[in-house]
């Protein structure tokens, strides 16, 4: 959660997060394969295990299908498929996070919940041009023990809509 003056204001863009410096923001850290991914907590509506994913014919690449999650039917996004052009086969233990940004909602699939940490957004190192290769990734936090990629759900969803 960003510790800024107006905490209820949506902070979906990196520029807005950086604007809140020197305050810290709270990020949900999840693991996908060996990668650590940060999601801004204010954009996460909940986490949990997913059930059966129903494939959606004609959906953009990376949309695994529809899933019933936390009381609603949501689109499940497979980041591995988006980034590595592979098809993830979700297992019964696959975890997911429901994210909401700019009025768009989706469920992101990942392997494990790692932590919830406070990081100063100013420490984010932005990528130059990685929209095609790593859709939705806005930058990375370099910590002493690891490197964490920050994923912007809004940017990711926009990328998927545009790619359709």
């Amino acid at each position, binding site marked *: 959660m960003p510790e800024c003056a107006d905490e209820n204001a949506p902070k979906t863009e990196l520029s807005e997060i950086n604007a809140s410096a020197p305050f810290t923001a709270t990020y949900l850290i999840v693991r996908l394969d060996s990668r650590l991914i940060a999601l801004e907590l*204010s954009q996460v509506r909940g986490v949990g295990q997913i059930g059966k994913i129903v494939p959606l014919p004609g959906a953009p690449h990376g949309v695994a299908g529809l899933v019933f999650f936390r009381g609603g039917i949501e689109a499940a996004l497979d980041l591995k498929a988006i980034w590595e052009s592979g098809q993830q086969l979700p297992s019964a233990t696959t975890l997911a996070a429901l994210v909401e940004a700019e009025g768009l909602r989706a469920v992101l699939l990942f392997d494990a919940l790692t932590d919830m940490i406070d990081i100063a957004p100013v420490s984010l190192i932005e990528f130059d041009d990685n929209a095609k290769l790593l859709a939705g990734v806005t930058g990375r936090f370099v910590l002493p023990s690891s490197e964490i990629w920050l994923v912007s759900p809004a940017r990711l969803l926009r990328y998927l809509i545009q790619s359709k």
Partner: protein
Amino acid sequence: MGRWLRIRLTDKLFIPFVGILVLSVILTIISTLYVLRTSDPEHSTLRLVSTILLAGLSTIVIGAFIYSWVLKFVLLLRIRSAIIAAQAIAGRDLTQRLDERGEDELAVLAAAFNAMSDNLRELTKALVRVSSEMDKIAAVNRDRVQQIKDLRRRTVQVGEVMEFIEQIADQTKLIAFNASIEAAGAGEMGRRFEVVAREIRRLAENVGESAGQIRSRITDIQKAGELLASTAAQESEEMNNQSAKLQKLTTGFKFDNLNNNL
């Protein structure tokens, strides 16, 4: 009789031989004197020679017959009884004993034979006792294998419980994450709740880690138990085989005259 038993075997064989020789000489001398007194001078030499030859030959034939009887009673009968006893021992009858009265070589042989028989009896009894002890040890070993298997089954059950605890810890962690998310959505009002949620999350993580470590230890114990059970089962089987061989070896021995067969 007692004096005769104390005479050595070589002497026993030599005395009849000397006796026959002396008897032969005496008979020859008597025959010669008789011939000299009764015969005429013309035919005395021929008669003398023939008489000496006849007396000598008859004495030797009679002597050989007597000597063979002496041999039979003195030597062959006792050797035959030793053969019968040895054959009985070969047939697992350890009650056989030889008459060891006297001091001759056959008496010494009989004493040695009896001592060997006694030692063999003691050895066989010891083997029977060892076989019995091995049976007991094998039974104890079988119980131990069963106990190890029971222990392994229980550790598997504990492992299942730990897996269940891990699942609960994971679910608790998920709930705590969701609580943190909700607290973050509530802004400043949810800050205190966020602290509680964070504590619960840490607790769930610790429980999960501890449960994982315990499950790992239990897995190690299970592997060690499997190895132990396998080794003990092999030892038990080996002991059973050895015991069976020993039983087969010691079966049918007769130890005393009361038909104490084993």
